[in-house]
């Protein structure tokens, strides 16, 4: 493989640190970049300075240039505002997906090309494999850490310019590699939450940015069984925190934003034979009619399904996919299509 000019998105975490190190060691001309996405003057006064600092220090240790790009305007427009709006519409958004779509593999990739880079690399646990003239998007080697699900929107032109160097390693191998290189991020804990909201503060965050009407909690027959303080606090499929005392397990089966009504029911009421998708995209060509594996949560267990138009038909009935969540379709280890549940 000949040396290429690669821009590595470095979050300040261990995965992207090792991604940069691996590419450097393969002889590529590597430059690191950290994105400032959130935290204006109204918040902490600046970006997440310690993460940027970690990325910068790792880059210095690796002897590669490092820059910070301020994409906060785009992040607010394409990720944060739609996130808030989705909750007020009764759906359950995945902001990491929109960040990948609009920011990392949108604005950043565009800028990388403008700056003359051949490739963009990130620390995602996924693999891009060449298959003849086509590129396949495969699960990362470490199935527990696989992130292909949040990358479902990547198509051929993007995959042709993208590398995921740590997708070939397990998380333990990544950390070992970082430790061997003496990188300061080797033992850094993983970020698990939505990056722009402090842990446990989602309701307050949304409440500060949108009107979230209170309303009734009803059963599947339409009888009022309780009240709630805002539909944004509920997700289809949710079981805990319904604020309704009943004899048996109850789940949120529907959220009607227009009437600010949350419907609860039994697990059977939640089961559906299919899910309809928007933003449907294909990694390459539309898959043939053969059975696929559907994954409907970041680390959810895949189950058998077929794609028919924009509809994913489940082999066996499944709990309803919360509107706004990603449905990714796999052929074995390869992600072939995906979309957002309606």
């Amino acid at each position, binding site marked *: 493989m000949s040396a290429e000019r690669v821009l590595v998105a470095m979050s300040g975490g261990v995965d992207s640190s090792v991604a940069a190190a691996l590419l450097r060691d393969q002889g590529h001309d590597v430059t690191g970049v*950290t994105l*400032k996405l959130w935290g204006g003057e109204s918040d902490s006064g*600046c*970006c997440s300075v310690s993460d*940027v600092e970690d990325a910068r220090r790792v880059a210095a240790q690796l002897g590669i240039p490092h*820059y*910070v790009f301020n994409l906060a305007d785009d992040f607010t427009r394409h990720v944060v505002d739609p996130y808030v709006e989705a909750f007020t519409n009764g759906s359950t958004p995945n902001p990491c997906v929109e960040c990948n779509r609009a920011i990392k593999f949108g604005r950043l990739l565009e800028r990388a090309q*403008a700056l003359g880079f051949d490739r963009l690399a990130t620390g995602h646990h996924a693999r891009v494999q060449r298959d003849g003239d086509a590129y396949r998007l495969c699960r990362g080697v470490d199935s527990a850490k696989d992130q292909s699900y949040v990358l479902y929107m990547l198509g051929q032109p993007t995959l042709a310019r993208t590398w995921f160097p740590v997708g070939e390693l397990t998380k333990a191998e990544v950390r070992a590699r970082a430790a061997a290189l003496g990188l300061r991020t080797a033992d850094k804990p993983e970020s698990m939450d939505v990056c722009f909201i402090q842990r446990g503060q989602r309701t307050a965050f949304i409440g500060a940015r949108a009107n979230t009407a209170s309303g009734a909690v009803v059963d599947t027959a339409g009888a009022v069984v309780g009240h709630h303080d805002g539909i944004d606090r509920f997700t289809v499929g949710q079981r805990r925190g319904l604020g309704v005392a009943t004899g048996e397990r109850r789940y949120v089966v529907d959220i009607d934003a227009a009437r600010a009504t949350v419907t609860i029911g039994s697990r059977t009421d939640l089961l559906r034979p299919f899910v309809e998708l928007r933003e449907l995209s294909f990694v390459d060509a539309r898959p043939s009619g053969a059975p696929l594996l559907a994954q409907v949560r970041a680390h959810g267990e895949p189950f058998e399904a077929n794609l028919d138009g924009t509809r994913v038909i489940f082999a066996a009935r499944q709990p309803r996919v919360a509107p706004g969540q990603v449905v990714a379709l796999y052929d074995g280890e390869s992600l072939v299509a995906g979309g957002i549940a309606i």
Partner: protein
Amino acid sequence: MYLDHAASTPMRPEAVDAMEPFLAMEFGNPSGGHRAAQAAKNALEEAREEVAELLGAMPAEIVFTAGGTEADNLAVKGAARAARSSGAGDGVVTARFEHKGVLASVDRLELDGFPVTRIDADADGIVALEQLAASLDARTAVVSLMLVNNEVGTIQPLDRAVELVRERSPRAVVHTDAVQAVPWLDVATATARADLVAISAHKFGGPKGIGALVVRGATPLEPLVEGGGQERGLRSGTSNVAGAVAMAAALRATVASRAVDASRIARLRDRLADGLLAAVPDAFENGDRRRKVAGNAHLGFRGVEAEALLVLLDVEGLFAAAGSSCSSGASEPSHVLEAMGVPRADALSSVRFSLGFASTDADVDAALQLVPRAVAQLRSAGVAA
């Protein structure tokens, strides 16, 4: 090619030489009584006398601080709090395009209940005096207006502003952030009119971490940092002797060559700005050049993201800046250009090239080659700002 002198300058050799003995040999604490302490104390006071003389002040009017931001904080918060304590008013007036050292201090005062007025600038980069006049009343306690804007380099009408304040708010204290003025203007003219004047050594060939606030006469100030009572009780803490000595040396060298440097650099700057405006289609200039200090060229290139342009220039070894810097190293959209009414897209396409005593014809030649090429590369990639 270093074209970011408004961010920081290289140290002048005179300043390096002056501070060296106080890093190694003369390490005494100037607050002590023995001979080692006395040597340090004498050097500190000599530096104070020299800085005072060069700024047109009395030695007792110089308060050494850790830099321009601290001097701004001491001036704005210190004067406002002292005024409120003594019943001399509590109104605070400043401009939207001030340095963050002033703006954040004013924000803090507002949280503490001080009434605040922030005035705009015009498209040329000059503070709106009619808004200033309308903001002043008998309750006004502090007016803070910079002498030279740090982003667009425009020289502000401080004389006229001070006249307005004296006329309408006779009790008000006037502070001017002169941090960007020292290499270009005789700051003594500001000292003659304002009550408080802030400077920072690393903007004129001195080291980082040292600055001063000129506190004229008996201007009442509440200290921010309290302790051993150094700096007449206005800034406690062991004095930065090496820094003060180096700042004095840098200021001496700056004042000695200021007229010659300014006219030489103005020619370089004009060659750079005119050259780029001629060579790059759809380029524009921010701020009225006739009212700028000699080192500032603030130029925009429509359809180009300044952040991307700076990366291409950095790769080629040309260092410039955009917006105001942030502790992360990201650039924030410029609050200065926003205050001037520059559209956001234009602001995000704008770059500050700031020249200084170390700038040469070769720097300008290189920039005239590199910038048009980089702009063309980004435009052909079609990444719109």
